[in-house]
C-alpha cells in the first residue's frame, strides 16, 4: 500500500518537473523562435524531470521520507532511464541534427547519424579503459561500466566548470578591471563609425553607377564567356571592370573596419554601463564579494597544490572542521555530528541550486547570440558561418549538451551520497572508483557532504 502511495508521489513530482522544464524551454530559451520539432523539447523536459527526481530522491534518502523499498525501486528506475537517455537518445539526436544540417549527407541522414553514434560509443568506451573498474564479478556490458564512466566524466566537467566560474566571477564583479570610459570617447568612436559607413556608401554608389553605365552601353561583363569572349576582352581592354575590382577591394576593407568599429563601440558602451552599475550600492557589494572570492580562490589553489604535492588527503571537510573549531576554541556546546550533517547538507543544497541557476542563466545567454559574448559573434561573422546553423537544431544542441553536464553532476552527487547510505549492494564496487575521485576532490577543496554513520542501515 505504501509503495503505491510513494509511487504516486514520485510520479506527481516528476510530472511537475517535466512541466517546469517544458515551460523554461518555451519561455526562456526559445523566446524569439518558434519551436517546430517537439521531439527536442520532449527530450529536454524528460532529461530535466529525471535529474530533478534523482535530486529529490537524495533528499528523501537523507530525510528518511517514504519507505526504503519503494525508494530503492524508484532509484533503480531513475538510474536506468537516465542512463538510457544520456547514452543512447541524446547523442543519437545530436548526431542526427548535425548530419541533417550538412547538405551533402542529407539523404542518408539516418545512416550517418548511426555512424556518429557508434563513433561516440567507441570513444566513450575507450575513455573508461584506464579506470580500475573491471572485475570478475561483473561482465563487460554491466551497468557499473556506464555509471562509472559517466560519473568520472561528470566530476571532471563539473570541476572544470566550477574552476572557470570561480575565476570568472571576481573578474566580472570587481571594478578594478574596468577601464575608464567617458561619453566623449564613445561619441568620437561613433563618429568614426558613421564616417566609415559614409565612405562605404559613396564607394558603392560609384560601383553601382559604373555598372549601370556599362550595362547601358552594352558592355555587361557577365556576358563575356567562352573563347570568343576571352579574345574580345584582350583586344578591347575593359578599364571599367579593373576600376570596379579595385574599388570593390577597398569596399571590403572598409566593411571590415566598420565591423571592428561597431564591436569596439558596443564594448565601450557595455563598459560604461558596468561603471555606472558599480557606483550603485549593489555594485559596491559585488565588488566586495569579488575581492573576497579572489582571495578565497588564491588560498584554495595554494592549498590544493600543497595537498597534491605532499600527497595529503584531507579527512574532514571544511564544515565539520569549522564546527570543531568553534566547539573547541569558543566553547560553544552542541551536537557536532547532528549539526555538521545538516549544515553540510544545506550547503550542498545551496551549491546545487546556485549551479543550476548559473547553468540556466548561461543557457539563456548562449541562446541570444548578441546577449552573449560579442567575440563569438565576431568570430562567426568573420568565418562566414552558414546561415542555417542558426536553425532550431543547432540551437537546441547546445542546451541539451549543457544539460548533460547537469545530469552528470547529479549522478556524481548521488553517488557520493550513496557512498554512505547505500542499499544497493551490487553497486558496491563502483564506489571504489568514486573514493579515488573523492580524495582528489578533497584535495581540490570542494566541501563534501559526509554522513557520519547516521544510523541508516543498509537494506
Amino acid at each position, binding site marked *: 500500500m505504501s509503495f503505491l502511495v510513494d509511487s504516486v508521489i514520485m510520479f506527481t513530482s516528476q510530472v511537475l518537473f517535466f512541466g517546469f522544464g517544458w515551460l523554461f524551454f518555451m519561455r526562456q530559451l526559445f*523566446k524569439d523562435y*518558434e519551436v517546430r520539432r517537439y521531439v527536442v523539447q520532449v527530450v529536454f523536459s524528460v532529461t530535466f524531470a529525471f535529474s530533478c527526481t534523482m535530486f529529490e530522491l537524495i533528499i528523501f534518502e537523507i530525510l528518511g521520507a517514504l519507505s526504503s523499498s519503494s525508494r530503492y525501486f524508484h532509484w533503480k528506475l531513475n538510474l536506468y532511464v537516465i542512463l538510457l537517455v544520456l547514452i543512447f537518445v541524446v547523442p543519437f539526436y545530436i548526431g542526427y541534427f548535425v548530419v541533417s544540417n550538412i547538405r551533402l549527407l542529407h539523404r542518408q541522414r539516418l545512416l550517418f547519424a548511426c555512424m556518429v553514434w557508434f563513433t561516440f560509443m567507441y570513444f566513450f568506451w575507450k575513455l573508461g579503459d584506464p579506470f580500475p573498474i573491471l572485475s570478475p564479478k561483473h561482465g563487460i556490458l554491466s551497468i557499473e561500466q556506464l555509471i562509472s564512466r559517466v560519473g568520472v566524466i561528470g566530476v571532471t566537467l563539473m570541476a572544470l566548470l566550477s574552476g572557470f566560474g570561480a575565476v570568472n566571477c571576481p573578474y566580472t564583479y570587481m571594478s578594478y578591471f574596468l577601464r575608464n570610459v567617458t561619453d566623449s570617447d564613445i561619441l568620437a568612436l561613433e563618429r568614426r563609425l558613421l564616417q566609415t*559607413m559614409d565612405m562605404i556608401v559613396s564607394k558603392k554608389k560609384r560601383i*553601382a553607377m559604373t555598372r549601370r553605365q556599362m550595362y547601358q552601353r552594352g558592355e555587361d561583363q557577365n556576358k563575356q564567356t567562352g573563347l570568343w569572349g576571352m579574345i574580345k576582352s584582350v583586344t578591347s581592354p575593359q578599364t571599367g571592370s579593373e576600376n570596379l575590382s579595385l574599388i570593390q577591394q577597398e569596399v571590403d576593407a572598409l566593411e571590415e573596419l566598420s565591423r571592428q568599429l561597431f564591436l569596439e563601440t558596443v564594448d565601450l558602451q557595455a563598459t560604461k*554601463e558596468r561603471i555606472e552599475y558599480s557606483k550603485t550600492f549593489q555594485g559596491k557589494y559585488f565588488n566586495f564579494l569579488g575581492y573576497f572570492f579572489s582571495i578565497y580562490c588564491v588560498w584554495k589553489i595554494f592549498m590544493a597544490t600543497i595537498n597534491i604535492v605532499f600527497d595529503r588527503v584531507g579527512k574532514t571537510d571544511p564544515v565539520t572542521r569549522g564546527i570543531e573549531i568553534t566547539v573547541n576554541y569558543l566553547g560553544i556546546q552542541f551536537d557536532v555530528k547532528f549539526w555538521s550533517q545538516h549544515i553540510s547538507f544545506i550547503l550542498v543544497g545551496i551549491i546545487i541550486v546556485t549551479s543550476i541557476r548559473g547553468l540556466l542563466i548561461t543557457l539563456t545567454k548562449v541562446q541570444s547570440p548578441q546577449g552573449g559574448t560579442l567575440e563569438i559573434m565576431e568570430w562567426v561573422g568573420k568565418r562566414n558561418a552558414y546561415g542555417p546553423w542558426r536553425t532550431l537544431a543547432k540551437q537546441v544542441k547546445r542546451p541539451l549538451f549543457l544539460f548533460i553536464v547537469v545530469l552528470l553532476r547529479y549522478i556524481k552527487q548521488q553517488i557520493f551520497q550513496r557512498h554512505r547510505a547505500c542499499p544497493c549492494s551490487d553497486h558496491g564496487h563502483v564506489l571504489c572508483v568514486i573514493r579515488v575521485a573523492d580524495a582528489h576532490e578533497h584535495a581540490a577543496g570542494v566541501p563534501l557532504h559526509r554522513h557520519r554513520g547516521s544510523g541508516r542501515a543498509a537494506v
Partner: protein
Amino acid sequence: MASLDRVKVLVLGDSGVGKSSLVHLLCQNQVLGNPSWTVGCSVDVRVQDYKEGTPEEKTYYIELWDVGGSVGSASSIKSTRAVFYNSVNGIILVHDLTNKKSSQNLYRWSLEALNKDSSPTGVIVSNGDYDREQFAENPVPLLLIGTKFDQIPENKRSEVLTRTAFLSEDFNAEEINLMTGFTDRKRFNFKSLHYD
C-alpha cells in the same frame, strides 16, 4: 554621379530572417550564395529611376542599411545601433514566414527605429502597448516583407497568408511575398517608396 539624390532605407528584422539576402538580391540582382551573420550594419546601394518613363523621371540612389541583431539585445548593442537610425527616409521590416515570433517582434523593431531616444543610455520610451495612432502621424513609410515562403509545406500556406494579412493591416503598410531562390523578378518594382 554623386550629385544624385539619396534615399536612406533601413532594413530591420530578427536575426536569420533573410535581410542580407534580400538586400543583396535587390542591389546585385543575384541570389546570395553564402549568407553569413551580419555584424553591425552593412550597406548596399541601388540606382533607381523614380517614375520611369514619365516626364518626371528622376534617378535616385537608394541606400539599404541592413542592421543586424535582435530586439532582445543588450542595451549596449541597442544604443550603438541607434547611431544608424538618423535621418531615415523609409523602413523595410522583414519577417520570416516560417517563424511566427519574428513577425511579433516587428512592432518592437519599428518602435526602436522610430522612437529613437537621443539620450546616451539609449533607453526607448514607450509603454509597450500597441498604438496605431503612432503610425498614423508618422512620416516615415513602412514596407513589410515576409520571406521563406517556399519553405512552408503546401497545406499550411493559406493560414500563413491569412496571418500576414492581419499583420499588414496592423501596420497600415504594403505587403509583398518573396520567395528565396527568386525566379519572378517582375514582382519587385520599386516604383515608389511612398504609400498612398
